[in-house]
């Protein structure tokens, strides 16, 4: 038998059919849906006179388009409200579980899946959202799909996909204090670029990866898509099993034992071949920050913005256009640059560990007056946990308020928009032009680097303050 990667094992076990000269028909175990990319899919289904095939394998929550204050009131924006109502209606009509605003199960779709134990090793998981890659942290094949594909999964629990190539990214060694999973991810993307992973599925390996918590692994896998890869995954281990065990939808009793037997097989064979292999040293990674308009434009926080020397043609114009948008110059130091907004949240860094780190950092310090900070838990469960752990008084003492769960300023579809020209240090995943509001300037960083910016009012190195 030929040696297989973790990816091969899960993929091959889910192929219903290989279409000649075409893609594979891939069976999907778990389908998450939200209000933005599903309505047209439901409409398509209706037009064809079809019903949802496996409602029990589908879970819905509105997250992209919801306010993060006063969630008990009806949503003010008419279009947003309509979209959220439509999701509820579609779910009701098709018998899909819907976790509405304000309910205990509500939150960003990639946060609630793992929390409920819906995300499990060995599964295939899709959602009409590119950051579905998050779920790969559990040793699952999880990737984002378009609305036509959402319709396919609703109609048949299958999707048609060519099998991607395989990449392994190994990070060995120990992370410096103040360096987090977010920094590993931004570091990798800065090295392989935002298209380096295209056509591939990534497996992360190495001691720096296996020593990450589940939260950290989710952050890392979440950002796989920003390197162009469809997804990223990490072989499940004790950390994974301990996280999953006992959760609402996790297997119980005998089923758990059976699952554990299967899950034990979920690792790449020793002699498995990857199409592409990268190795990095954890010691080379410092807290990262982006200075441009794609996630690959990141550097260590203590460094200076690279020059365009050596670039030519559209490479050069694209680079210069990007710096111009940011209002930065080649060769500028990042440290000390002014900051207007800080956003802690999103499916990248909106989990409990992120809030713990942020709170521990700002404890006994004060928010800078020039900074507006939005702290948005990724889910109601995260919010509850923040409250239960007594983090709220610590945050409030330092001048920070907690908002209610949602995607918020990650994509600014709701009212949480960064104004034109303002600088936002954001723990989210995309610093594209206008991502956080028309004209907004986004600097991606970890919760710690965001906390350092929030208390100093400028870009700062968190390591110097810990």
């Amino acid at each position, binding site marked *: 038998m030929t040696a297989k990667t973790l990816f091969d094992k899960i993929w091959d076990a889910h192929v*219903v059919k290989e*279409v*000649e*000269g*075409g*893609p594979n*028909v891939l*069976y999907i175990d778990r389908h998450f849906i939200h209000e*933005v*990319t599903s*309505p*047209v899919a439901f*409409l*398509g289904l209706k037009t*064809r006179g*079809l019903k949802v095939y496996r409602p029990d394998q589908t879970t819905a929550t509105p997250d*992209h*388009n919801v306010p993060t204050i006063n969630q008990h009131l009806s949503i003010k*924006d008419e279009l947003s409200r*309509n979209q959220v109502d439509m999701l509820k209606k579609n779910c009701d009509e098709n018998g899909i579980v819907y976790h509405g605003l304000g309910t205990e199960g509500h939150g960003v779709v990639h946060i609630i899946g793992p929390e409920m134990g819906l995300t499990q090793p060995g599964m295939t998981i899709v959602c*009409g959202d*590119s950051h579905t890659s998050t779920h790969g942290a559990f040793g699952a094949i999880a990737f*984002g*799909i*378009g*609305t*036509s*594909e959402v*319709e*396919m999964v609703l*109609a*048949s*629990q*299958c999707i*048609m*996909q*060519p099998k*991607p190539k395989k990449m392994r990214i190994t990070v060995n060694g120990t992370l410096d204090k103040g360096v987090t999973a977010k920094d590993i991810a931004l570091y990798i993307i800065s090295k392989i670029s*935002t*298209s380096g992973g*295209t*056509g591939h599925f990534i497996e992360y390996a190495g001691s720096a990866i296996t020593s990450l918590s589940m939260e950290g692994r989710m952050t890392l896998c979440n950002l796989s898509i920003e390197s*162009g890869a*469809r997804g990223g995954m990490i072989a499940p281990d004790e950390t994974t099993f301990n996280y999953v065990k006992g959760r609402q939808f996790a297997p119980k009793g005998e089923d758990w034992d059976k699952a554990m037997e299967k899950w034990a097989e979920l690792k790449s064979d020793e002699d498995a071949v990857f199409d592409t292999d990268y190795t990095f040293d954890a010691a080379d990674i410092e807290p990262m920050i982006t200075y441009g308009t*794609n996630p690959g434009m990141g550097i260590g926080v203590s460094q200076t913005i690279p020059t365009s020397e050596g670039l030519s*043609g*559209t*490479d050069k*114009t*694209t680079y210069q*256009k990007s710096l111009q948008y940011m209002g930065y110059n080649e060769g500028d130091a990042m440290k000390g640059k002014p900051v207007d907004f800080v956003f802690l949240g999103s499916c990248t860094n909106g989990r409990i560990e992120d809030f713990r780190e942020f709170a521990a950092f700002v404890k006994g310090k004060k928010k800078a007056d020039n900074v507006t900070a939005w702290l948005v838990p990724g889910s109601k469960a995260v919010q509850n946990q923040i409250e239960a752990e007594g983090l709220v008084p610590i945050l409030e003492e330092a001048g920070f308020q907690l908002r209610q769960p949602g995607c918020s300023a990650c*994509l600014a*579809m709701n009212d949480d928009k960064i104004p034109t020209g303002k600088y936002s240090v954001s723990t989210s995943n*995309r610093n*594209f*032009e*206008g*991502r956080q509001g*028309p*004209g907004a300037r986004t600097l991606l960083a970890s919760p710690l680097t965001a906390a350092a910016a929030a208390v100093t009012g400028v870009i700062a190195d968190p390591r110097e303050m810990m």
Partner: protein
Amino acid sequence: MAYDKFSIINTSAVPLPYENVDTDQIIPARFLKAVERKGFGDNLFRDWRYENDGSPKADFPLNNPKYSGKILVGGKNFGSGSSREHAAWAIYDYGFRVVVSSFFADIFKGNALNNGLLPVVVSPEFLEKIFDQIEKDADSTFEVDLPNQVFTITATGESTDFEINPYKKHCLQNGLDDIDYLVEMKEQIAEFEQA
């Protein structure tokens, strides 16, 4: 989703010589609130096309009257970022049928193919030739021959082959989509679930 069958087209092209054109630029998130698939073309490249007050930005290619046609030519890594299919809908709805680049992001490429929009990958050198040709003469036409998988610069006769998965090609040529295919597989899927 029904779309027009694709065979051979011969038209001028609109150049967009930027790299990493992400789907947030193609259609910003605040325009994703519709619950039907209509009218996204109006907001295609919204923030590059219009000032905050709604007036058109004269230097953006889509606003330049000298450019027209059904082919959009973009720099490398076109369509990166968000999985929003609205990006493909917006480009199609605006009137494009082909996007040419030297490199496409995966999800965008899949979304385009599912919506009758043909992504054509050419070499970086050939891409430069296309940009040069449009620069020389904005009325230059290009032929996209899907059956033979050939892209030709009409003025110079230079051409290049492009690749497309045979199944997807068949779908595009016949205006078919994957859902029809999958629904017909119902029994086989049910069997798979039992196994």
